[in-house]
């Protein structure tokens, strides 16, 4: 654990530099914010289009789905702010050999690689997404209780862990398939499915999203928690999935690294 | 016979966006952009005969590349005019492009993921070279540039020097009359530099091609060109024989020394002008013809750890020839960097 603590100190120094650097690109902030608002609007319109032809989507009402879209946007913000600039660079580092420079440092390599760079402006997407989720929640007219709030916070943390684990899994493939440059596109494609509650999909797809590519746990579960449809048993399951995701990412990283060092880089 | 390259009062002025620092400056610039004209090339006039090789010298940002871009039809002049291979570069169209080649040392056009052979094939088709011509020219270029089996390896696996040689071959398959080379030997190892120099000389003689090149290396200039054009801050300062220039700057050599004992500056001044003094190293400028004798004396008199005799670098030649002001290309370099980064994005 001391290695993780030391890594945290190193990362803090990195983030400070990072922040100064990012201040240079304020113009990009406006552009990316406009882009986020635009795509949020498109997503809400898409949901609205579905609801022209149905009153419920997999048992969810319109504003429930908008709550989910807000959570989707917040998670997408975490991906853009932390995962894509951090672990998303792993394949390029493996190809160029830059990973060697990380491995010789007295830091926790996985921790360091995952969080070395932040695209700070994209945290605005997280705020925007949570704000939308909050607004939509008020529109649903449901009362908010302590149980809903607590399970939401916990399951949202689980969602981040699951998304992180998926990224580690995809990016670790770079150790085996050096030639594949666009693994991130695979995540983007799969994550699209998380824009809808998983119950809105036909059986085969639902099975896929719950068990094989666990994106059901990313948006559907936190949105269920907030809208009061999460059964206590499922909340416990979510907690287990989150812990398993972190453990699996750690294990996978170890295996991948063995492969890297034994292959001589 | 008309000149292969003719530049008449060629000028290029860019409007550079002026912006005060800080957020306020950025907002003001957004609302009411201000522009400041920068003369990148200022009334440059010269003529180059067919078959000649001319070197274009000057500090970074002096206007060399801008001039080359006007001569190749990438930019049009703000005023004045150019004629290359009988065409106005800006309006010459494909007939003009068939007659020139433009090789940029820091930008490659080889297909990165494929062997150079594929780029050759592509250029054969793009320039409409007949099969018979292609076979003959390809064989000649492979021989002169000593390409061997390099042409069958993916370009990304080649060294910088190998890539540049293949780049040249690809650019010459259509046998251009006029060849523009921007820093062709930049960053290459000595052997590759040497091959490229001797190749260009040989190629020019065989095919009566006209060559205009820019370079930082004095060796490129002495090996390839008998005539030099010196440009600084957009103005043509010198156009003439290289030997005349050398005579004009008082033919000097630089003796670079590393001393193993402490020697006062005054003592070194007995041997020549001390251009640079930072113990334990020092640089002494001496007349060209006495360089050997001076070296011998230095070696005999002082405890010398290392000694080498060098040609003055181009920047130094220019400084000596035209005084201190000529060396200062920095203001201009900054302007050209700005031009590259910012002006294209300015509203029309």
């Amino acid at each position, binding site marked *: 654990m001391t290695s993780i603590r030391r890594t945290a100190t190193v990362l803090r120094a990195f983030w400070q530099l990072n922040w100064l650097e990012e201040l240079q690109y304020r113009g990009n902030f406006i552009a990316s914010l406009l882009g986020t608002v635009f795509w949020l609007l498109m997503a809400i319109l898409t949901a609205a289009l579905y609801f022209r032809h149905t009153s419920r989507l997999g048992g969810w009402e319109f504003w429930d789905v908008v709550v989910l879209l807000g959570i989707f946007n917040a998670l997408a913000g975490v991906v853009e702010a932390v995962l894509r600039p951090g672990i998303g660079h792993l394949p390029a580092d493996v190809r160029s050999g830059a990973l060697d420079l990380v491995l010789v440092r007295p830091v926790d390599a996985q921790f360091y690689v995952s969080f070395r760079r932040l695209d700070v402006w994209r945290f605005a997407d997280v705020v925007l997404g949570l704000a939308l989720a909050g607004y939509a929640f008020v529109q649903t007219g449901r009362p908010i209780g302590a149980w809903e709030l607590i399970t939401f916070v916990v399951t949202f943390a689980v969602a981040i862990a699951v998304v992180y684990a998926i990224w580690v899994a995809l990016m670790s493939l770079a150790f085996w398939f050096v030639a594949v440059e666009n693994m991130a596109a695979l995540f983007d494609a799969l994550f699209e*499915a998380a824009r809808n509650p998983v119950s809105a999909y036909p059986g085969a797809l639902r099975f896929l999203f719950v068990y094989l590519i666990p994106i059901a746990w990313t948006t559907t579960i936190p949105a269920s928690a907030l809208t009061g449809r999460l059964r206590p048993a499922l909340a416990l399951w979510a907690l287990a999935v989150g812990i398993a995701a972190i453990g699996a990412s750690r294990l996978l990283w170890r295996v991948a690294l063995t492969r890297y060092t034994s292959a001589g880089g | 016979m008309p000149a292969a390259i003719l530049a008449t009062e060629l000028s290029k002025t860019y409007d550079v966006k002026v912006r005060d620092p800080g957020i306020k400056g950025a907002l003001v610039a957004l609302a009411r952009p201000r522009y400041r004209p920068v003369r990148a090339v200022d009334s440059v006039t010269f003529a180059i005969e067919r078959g000649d090789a001319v070197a274009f010298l000057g500090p970074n940002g002096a206007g060399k590349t801008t001039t080359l871009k006007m001569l190749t039809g990438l930019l049009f002049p703000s005023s004045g005019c150019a004629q290359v291979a009988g065409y106005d570069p800006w309006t010459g169209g494909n007939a003009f492009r068939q007659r020139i080649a433009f090789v940029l040392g820091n930008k490659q056009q080889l297909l990165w993921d*494929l062997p150079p052979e594929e780029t050759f094939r592509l250029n054969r*088709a*793009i320039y409409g070279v007949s099969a018979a011509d292609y076979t003959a020219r390809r064989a000649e270029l492979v021989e002169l540039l000593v390409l061997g089996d390099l042409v069958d390896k993916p370009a990304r696996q080649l060294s910088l020097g190998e890539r540049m040689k293949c780049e040249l071959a690809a650019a010459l398959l259509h046998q251009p009359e006029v060849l523009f080379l921007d820093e062709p030997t930049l960053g290459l190892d000595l052997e590759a530099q040497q091959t490229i120099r001797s190749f260009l000389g040989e190629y020019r003689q065989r095919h009566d091609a006209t060559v205009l090149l820019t370079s930082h290396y004095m060796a490129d200039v002495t090996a390839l060109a008998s005539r030099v054009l010196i440009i600084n801050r957009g103005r043509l300062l010198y156009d003439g024989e290289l030997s005349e220039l050398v005579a004009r700057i008082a033919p000097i050599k630089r003796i670079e020394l590393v001393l193993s004992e402490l020697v006062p500056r005054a003592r070194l001044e007995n041997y020549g002008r001390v251009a640079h003094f930072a113990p334990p190293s020092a640089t002494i400028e001496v007349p060209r013809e006495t360089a050997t004798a001076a070296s011998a004396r230095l070696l005999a008199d002082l405890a010398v750890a290392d000694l080498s005799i060098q040609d003055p670098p181009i920047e130094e030649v220019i400084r000596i020839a035209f005084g201190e002001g000529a060396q200062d290309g920095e203001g201009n370099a900054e302007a050209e960097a700005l031009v590259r980064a910012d002006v*294209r*994005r300015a509203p029309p």
Partner: protein
Amino acid sequence: MTSGTTRSAVAVFRDQYAELMRSAFLIDLQYRASIAIWLIWGVTEPIISLGIWWSIAAAGAVDGFTREAFAQYFFGVALVNQATLSWDAWNIDRWIREGEMNYRLTRPIAPIHEAIADNVAYKGPTATIILSAWIIAAAFWPAVRIPFEPAHWALAIVAIVLAAAIRFLNGYATGLLAFWTTRATALVELQFGISLFLSGRIAPLSLLPPRVAEVAGYLWFPYVLSFPVQVLTGTITTTAQYVRGFAGQVIWLAIWLMLYLLVWSRGRRHYGAVGG
């Protein structure tokens, strides 16, 4: 200097295209693993839309669309989308930013031909892969079988080629705005966002609010996706519908061709004035 035999301009042009396509194809082969991922990326969106509409249609047809009709429609979307993708704006943006446009401008062939050859070399094989996947799926899943009539397929191919040409010129001309602005690709994305609805990507146009569908009819969006998909899946039946659709495609092709020519000549002039 040059050989005695001069070849006709047409022969040279054909030769140029053959070699441009050959090298583009060889480069694609190097990136086949990455291309496989792009293909997955391309089909997920229609599959997700299909999944949702399939569930909605559980209770019965939605405005005349049965589950089978949705399945055929979105398989059509996946195929037509693959054949009409547009990525050139990103290339143009990079070439201008990194100075790679320069050598392209000193060659005796306009850069757009390289882009066209690149598009044909990529879309031919990848669209064939999607089509093959469709045929295999149809063997197991009757819902996605569409009638096989040669005349009707020939019309579908014409409609898809026209759609690809319109979307290509649309993307290319928008991308050329990179001569003036660094945000040209954002404009392409903006159009893409609008096209989600107006071209029929996330739902057949007839399921949109009537006003929106009407607005779409005045733009090029339906002609680059909805119309070719309808021709392909056989949901267009009357001659009048065919005539209107193809006429719309030809008109929008002409408009975007003119816009491309305009932006190209203006942009080239601007580039010549301020450099790259």
